[in-house]
């Protein structure tokens, strides 16, 4: 099965058709997607600002991350599910949309940025848990994460204006 026939089969699927043709489904799923996306960005921003060097509501960076990460992941999972459902309703056109492609690429970069942080600075967190400002590598990880997520929100909103 080629890429374009796969996208067309998503479009033609019962789920894709139902979301496209029902009057309430698309707005409902989209609202949930916005709620989950803002929860992801809001909780990530709290952690990123602490990594950049702003004091948070608790002093230790490690406990802050542990407390907020479950919310970030749960919201991200729901954002991914709702996003996939929206994609299914108009798969070939989303796949061809510039801002959509840019958003997916930026999401991958945010994932790589997070993986690098967890494999490097986070392993040594006991050394900088209470430090303000944190070491330079940590501040860079926080700043790049926050920047990438802001860009993701912009691309996400832009899709609605450019998708065919």
């Amino acid at each position, binding site marked *: 099965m080629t890429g374009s026939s796969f996208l067309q089969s998503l479009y033609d699927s019962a789920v894709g058709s139902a979301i496209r043709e029902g009057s309430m489904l698309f*707005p409902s799923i*989209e*609202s949930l997607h*916005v*709620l989950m*996306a*803002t*929860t992801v*960005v*809001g*909780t990530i*921003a*709290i952690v990123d600002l602490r990594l950049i060097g702003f*004091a*948070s*509501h*608790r002093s230790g960076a490690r406990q802050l991350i542990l*407390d*907020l990460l479950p*919310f970030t992941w749960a919201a991200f999972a729901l954002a991914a599910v709702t996003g996939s459902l929206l994609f299914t309703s108009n798969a070939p056109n989303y796949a061809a949309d510039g801002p959509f492609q840019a958003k997916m690429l930026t999401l991958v970069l945010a994932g790589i940025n997070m993986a690098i942080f967890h494999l490097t600075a986070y392993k040594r967190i006991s050394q900088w848990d209470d430090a303000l400002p944190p070491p330079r590598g940590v501040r860079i990880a926080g700043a790049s994460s926050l920047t990438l997520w*802001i860009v993701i*929100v*912009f691309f*996400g*909103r*832009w899709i*609605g*204006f450019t998708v065919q």
Partner: protein
Amino acid sequence: MNLLEFSKALYATPISTGIRETAGIIPTTQSIHILAIAVVVGSALVTDLRLAGVLETDETPQTVVRRYLPWMWAAIAVLLTTGTILIVGEPNRVLANPVFWAKMLLVVLAFALTLLFRYPILHPQFQIEHARWAGLVKPTAWVSLLVWIAVIFCGRWIAYAI
């Protein structure tokens, strides 16, 4: 002048036309609006869940409220500014839209809850368990969170209700 006439008059002004017809203004303004919502959601989530007694209970309510209230107000200021730009640019999309007015009502409610329930907590001598309205803190925290969620749903629904 009724609301529809006002909407038409506003639509015809040069500033409204400028916002509408300059490429990129509306998507950029909406993106900033959503980022400010993310700040409200993060702040409201941590503060309201702390006041509800389910998150960060080893920190005092004062510490948590003091951390997030300024961010909340800054985000609300950005939301009102970007929201106003969007209304001026596309008054026909919102002013006759019942979902928009439902959202405004909910925003006023969320605003009042934020104002009334967070400032007393910031007072240095305040002890939440001794407050006369101590029993109201937990339910109000949940209501506040739910009202913000409803605001977000209404916000996205404006695009579909007219």
